[in-house]
């Protein structure tokens, strides 16, 4: 009996052993397969493409950070076999289209976030929008991350924006608006109605003071709009002296500084609190003739609904912002946290990319760094020409040393 039992046990061990060694990889997701993708180029809104003069699709696979560039060759489509993945798609191109019967050439582009490419074959329609051209004011630099004190503490009062006249004529900031978006680039919601193709949803709105020609900016010159226009080095030797800033944020009880040289910004709607991680978009806005700030905050109220998802549950929510038509926007930049960035909170016609300092929430490497616009070269007057393609991803250098940090 025992002998038979042991013989059976022997056999069982052999069977178990070899069964354990058999392959358990029966997945049908081989992963090596590529997807043959056809990108169809759609007509822009209210226009028909006559000819695509040139077009390039820039793809970034987000898991591997692998970049691929596809160049248009004809037939309003671009085809390519791509590895399975999640892609950010940027489109840049030039098309011809008819305006009042006359053929015109225009720059177009778009940015599409997080497109999943998988399966054997797929088709992806690419919407394109006309890019607004700007040769005026640009936001050249944003320093929002703050600094670290010698004691290792966080210091954030030294934030600033550098606004530069990128044209070859004198421009005036008087009456222009400085806008912080209502929506955040790391919190994508299905806001209804969706007005992004027409307008920017503004949270904080500030106005530059002046009666028309009080604040001229020479070609190639810049002004500083500081959170606090004081000498921060008196409090933090790792910071900077911002007493020469031209403008300062002003909130009652927060910014009441004696002996301030900078002009106080006028708060029109909400208060501007600059996020130290960088998760909003900022825009310079020039209102059309006849529009006043009083009228703006009354006539352009944007009430929206969305479902706030929390803990897997959806909670119907409502809120409101101020609509800033895209056509008023002189320049805009989307800021994001690299590993949490979800979407652009502006229309791609004003900014189809984003830039960043922080790699993740709480990134210790962010202190003392800024985002700064690339310099293309010098113009005839010897002034820097700043890159402005309405794509912050390529227009800005992320996480660089701020220009005011001379020491």
């Amino acid at each position, binding site marked *: 009996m025992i002998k038979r039992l042991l013989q059976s046990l022997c056999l069982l061990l*052999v069977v178990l052993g070899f069964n354990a060694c058999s392959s358990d990889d029966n997945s049908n997701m081989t992963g090596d397969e590529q997807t043959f993708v056809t990108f169809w180029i759609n007509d822009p809104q209210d226009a028909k493409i006559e000819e695509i003069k040139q077009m390039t699709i820039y793809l970034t696979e987000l898991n591997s950070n692998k970049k691929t560039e596809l160049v248009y060759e004809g037939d309003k489509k671009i085809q390519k076999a791509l590895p399975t993945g999640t892609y950010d798609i940027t489109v840049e191109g030039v098309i011809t289209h008819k305006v009042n019967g006359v053929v015109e050439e225009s720059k177009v582009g778009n940015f599409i976030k997080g497109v*999943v490419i998988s399966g054997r074959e797929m088709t992806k329609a690419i919407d394109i929008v006309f890019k607004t051209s700007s040769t005026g004011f640009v936001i050249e630099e944003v320093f929002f991350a703050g600094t670290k004190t010698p004691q290792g503490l966080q210091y954030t009062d030294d934030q600033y924006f550098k606004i530069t006249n990128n044209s070859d004529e004198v421009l005036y900031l008087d009456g222009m608006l400085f806008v912080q978006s209502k929506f955040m680039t790391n919190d994508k919601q299905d806001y209804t109605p969706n007005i992004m193709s027409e307008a920017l949803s503004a949270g904080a709105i500030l106005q530059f003071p002046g009666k028309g020609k009080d604040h001229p900016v020479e070609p190639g010159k810049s002004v500083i709009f500081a959170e606090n226009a004081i000498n921060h080095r008196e409090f933090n030797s790792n910071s900077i002296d911002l007493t020469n800033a031209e403008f300062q944020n002003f909130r009652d009880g927060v910014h009441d500084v004696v002996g301030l040289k900078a002009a106080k910004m006028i708060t029109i709607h909400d208060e501007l609190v600059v996020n130290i991680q960088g998760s909003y978009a900022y825009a310079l806005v020039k209102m059309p003739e006849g529009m006043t700030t009083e009228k703006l905050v009354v006539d352009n109220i944007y009430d929206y609904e969305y479902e706030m998802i929390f803990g897997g549950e959806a909670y119907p929510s409502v809120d409101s912002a101020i609509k800033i038509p895209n056509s008023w926007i002189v320049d805009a930049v989307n800021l994001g946290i690299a590993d949490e960035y979800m979407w652009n909170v502006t229309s791609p016609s004003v900014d189809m990319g984003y830039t960043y300092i922080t790699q993740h929430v709480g990134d210790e490497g962010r202190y003392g760094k800024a985002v700064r616009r690339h310099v293309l070269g010098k113009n005839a007057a010897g002034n820097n020409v700043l890159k402005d393609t309405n794509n912050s991803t390529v227009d800005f250098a992320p996480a660089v040393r701020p220009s005011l940090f001379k020491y």
Partner: protein
Amino acid sequence: MKHFHFGLCLLSLLSTVWGYGQQSDSLAIKVKENQDVIHHFEEPIYVNPSHYLDYRKYSLTSFEIAKQNSKNETTLAQEGKNRDDLSFQANAYHKLDKHSAVWGSATYQQGKRRDVMWNESADYHLIFPYVVADSVGGDIKYEDYHIAGGYAQRLGKYNIGISGFYKAKMEYRNIDPRPKNLSARLGGNIGVSRVFKEFFTIGVNTSIEKYTQKHKMDFYSPTGFPVIYEMSGMGNFNNLLKGKRREAYYDGWRYGTSLQVYDTYQKKWFATVGMNIFSFEKLLPDFYDLQVSKVKEVEHFFSVGKLFDVQATQLGVRLDGNMKTRKGTENLFVNVSATNYLKIGQEEQYKYENKSLRLSGVFKYGTLNSVYSILPYIGITQEVERYKKPYSKTDIQYTYMGADLQWMYTFKDRSLLTVASNWKVRQTAKEKATFNYGNSNAINQMLLDNYAVQIAEYWEGSFKVRYDFALPKVIDVFVGGEYYFQNYKQFQNNSSVMMSLGITF
């Protein structure tokens, strides 16, 4: 408190075997037999617990405290450099009667590994390449617990054996970044063997092991923390998951089986063949146990040996082969929101192969008071590591040769002196590397530094002395010391010193 519990375990083990220790066999005979190089030569047989009836001729129990200081300058970044260890170890093997045997061991070890870089996880050798990493690193403190035991029984022409073990490890750091890793391995092994025609024995065994590791990262700095990477081999990482993930969980199983054939009574010849499979998955609890990657490692091994007796001399030759292939599959994701990731595909990206062949011999010569032995060996190993996209590959072949020397001398008072010295030379026969450098200069540098260490040629030697003696009417004691030295042509040398003190009964 946990130390207290572990101490209780050790005491329990010792008290269990204490009675068995009251043998009349002389200390020198028992220890000398236990340290016999022939046992080391025949070690492959004992993968099967049913063979433990003849594991040693005498029952023996030992308790040892050891302190080791290692000064290691040339290591892989993930393994750390200098190391300090303190360990307590108890071992027991006892023949209950002619037909049954029992054995057990318990170990507690604590220490610190210094300058561990690009690896904040525990058990690097098990979970590579899917470690959690950051660019800061630092010293890692650790505590290891290990308890094992087994039982073998003869039933006519059959032997059956069963054994089990439990290993637990805690690793942590007290300054930012503060990883805390808890790993556990629980395994069992069951085997059966049968004697055929009073001449040879055939045995088969199957083993199973459960592996888990819980990794948690904390930062106390109010100003922020560095980037945390989910590494995926050869300097790559998942860009979408890069950032602030605080937890990781490794969950795996190991299965194995092997077959042994050997000369039943004298073990003059033996042959074993077997295989092991280890697979695990890496999960991110931050995202509802999102599976990031998985690994399947298949290992085949064999060993054949033959012993000859030429008068008072024993000679032997043994050939060992091992082939191990590890494949890593990584998942691809889309981030629906900042905290919600969906799997959209998977890809087998990583592959590691290790093939080795080792030819060794044994020479043992005994006189009335002395036993001399030499175990020379020569071997060749090929290690290939590859990452598919972006393509990276290293292919390293190296040869090595060396000898383990031992001299045991029995004094008139029956005390025993053991002197051992091991020597080895490693030479690189072939090396070729293709790296796809990423954007991180720090990671690129780590890859190059690691590769330089992997292909480095060296020689190493150790010198070990142990003295076993009896304290009259008290207990049998041993003291030992070992010095180890590893010499690199192009890098700084590694060395270690170990002192040990123990009792046997």
